């Protein structure tokens, strides 16, 4: 039993150290996006997913944080900010036009900073 455990541990450590050496092309980034409700959540996430290279996009109603996992070789945060703004949602440095803001569903008329 003990031997088995030691063996397993050694295998893990071997693997994991290897895994850490490899340069990942994926990047985890979190940005603040202004919004209110479940509707906004759907719209923001859908907008983010429209960018090729966005692997995962989860926006939190509580914290207003959009957690992204990007393929760095294909997508940039700026691209995501642009499409999210186009959908009507402000983030840092990238504001939605008044026109697209006005088109937002009623519950999504968040307070603009």
């Amino acid at each position, binding site marked *: 039993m003990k031997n088995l455990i030691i063996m397993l541990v050694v295998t*893990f450590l071997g693997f994991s150290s290897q895994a850490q050496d490899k340069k990942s092309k994926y*990047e985890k980034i979190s940005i603040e996006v202004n919004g209110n409700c479940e509707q906004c959540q759907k719209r923001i996430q859908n907008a983010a997913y429209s960018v090729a290279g*966005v692997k995962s996009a989860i926006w939190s109603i509580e914290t207003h944080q959009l957690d992204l996992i990007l393929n760095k070789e294909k997508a940039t945060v700026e691209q995501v900010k642009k499409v999210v703004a186009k959908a009507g949602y402000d983030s840092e440095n990238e504001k939605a036009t008044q026109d697209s803001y006005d088109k937002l569903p009623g519950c999504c008329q968040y307070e603009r900073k």
Partner: protein
Amino acid sequence: MKNIAFFIVMLFSVMTFSQEKLEEVKVESKKKGIVKSVSKISNTSVVTSKELLKAACCNLAESFETNPTIDVNFSDALTGTKQIKMLGLTSPYILISEENIPSVRGASQAYGLSFTPGTWVESIQITKGAGSVVNGFESISGQINTELIKPMKDIPFFLNVYGATDSRFELNTHFNKRVSDYWSTSLFVHGNTRVAKNDMNDDGFLDNPLGKQINLTNRWQYTNPKSGWVTFLNLRYMKDDKQSGEIHFDPDKDKLTTNYWGSEINTERIDFSSKVGYVFKDMPFQSIGFQNAFSNHNQQSYFGLNQYDIKQQSFYSNLIFNSIIGNTMHKFTTGLNFTYDKYAEYVNLEDVSRIDNSVGAYFEYTYDDLDAFSYILGGRLDYHNRLGAFFTPRLHVKYKPWEKAAFRFSAGRGKRAANIFAENQNLFASSRVFSVLDTNGKVYGLNPEIAWNYGLSFTQSFLLFGKSADATVDFYRTDFQNQAVVDVMNSPQQVLFYDLKGKSFANSLQIDFNVELIKHLNLRTAYKYFDISTEYLSGNFQRPLQAKHRFFGNLEYETDTTKKGKQWKFDYTFNWLGKQQLPITASNPPEDRLPEFSPSFGVMNAQITRVFSSVFEVYIGGENIGNYQQNKAILGNDNPFGPNFDTSIVYAPIFGQMYYAGLRFKIK
């Protein structure tokens, strides 16, 4: 009786102890017992550990008593084990797994659920309908997966003592230790015993078996969040002995003689399983897992003059890869499966041993539009030495038409080799002659069972007079293409096994309505309709021992937890069963005849729990409080070696009312 009195005294002495415990303030939100997940694509409900505390006792088979999706049958006099049904089909048609490794199958089909003590369980996921392809091709009516308490989340010590008026006693102790930052281990020790002979209906036979079980498991968990590696190792040993039959039966003198009728079922089982998982760095959506399980199951038994021995050595292996296509709206799971089962099986010394093995590959795609529509489409291709090469498709679709509502649809195929003797071994405790009528098939002469299952479900949550409520309507149909028919409709002296010649189907309709009547008072109700019809040699009949109409009600009430952590919990369950088709007994002499249908009846269970603090609580309860008893539990009980003897026709409780008490103590 003396034992019980002693036990109660012990309970009280522990109670006085606990009152000197320190005060503790904790804010906890109310947890629900059964969670119907709106987010899951399949029709899955999760039974939490809280719900498990409501069931009287004590093992997995008994933990579904407060759940309308699963029907728990009454334990027969012989084995004392409760069998479960889903969509009207018995447990062989349900894939029962423990931590996603198939556990109750083959030789363990009849008693396997009673080999997992309830206190070990963290949660149970119950999926109605076809289910996922990841765990195999055998599931037809549903899947039940049990998660045991994880060593990393466990508390250092847990003790549970239970005693009941049917003279059953249980002891559960859990020990947990964090060995290092990444390693934790748990040791679970379970023992149960029934010490006294009970014969409440004065038929000369025990109402429930004498027995003892010892069950040990040692679990190891390795979790390293930095590297993404997770590992579980489990080692388990179980030994279970049961004795039943006539009160005066003494195994040392009367075994396999006609002095007295008696039976012993002795099972010994060893399990070892390992799981290794790795979540890719910076890619939480991609992971790889490898599960391996080995088990050795050995049952030695006799029922009167019938002898039945089965030994199964089993190996299971599953390699799973999860990832996404493009982004997390498109997920997939793919992998390879291998199973090996070696059966050494002897029916009255006739050797029916066999070896089964299968290898398979599966792929399952999950689409989620992040809004209203999602589906899981899966398929697997298997090669099995007895079932041949075949494809298993499965589909689950969910559509949310509006807020708090979901439509679900599922369809899928299942295929399995019926272990006719292991699954129907309760029939050995009768004078029935076993005959397998077909000879061309590869499993005891029979062909594999094949069935399609389709289901439709609609669920809606809403506010009723300001109280949260929900309603669900489910309809499922199982169509058998082939079935290993178990025929007790031909003659009371025979049981026939043959390949389905005509039509066989199972329709089930379930309507659920749940509401919080007033704060902390929850009502759960369900009505179930079953139409389970099979063409037997003697004609078309409803499946014997299955009620067409069932009604279920559960009422639970809890007081607010006081600052000191004190709380009362009350729970009441009512089950009503309509008339059930009974096996044919018309050709027997009048005194050994049963009517064509059983009467309808209701059964009530109740439990009260007193929580003294977060570390100590006691509970008392009663089962079958209305004291309903089956009229004639054993046919031909006055002549057990005669032609009309049959213990297998159990449609209602045999033992009358039963009361129990227990305690739980934790060190956190």
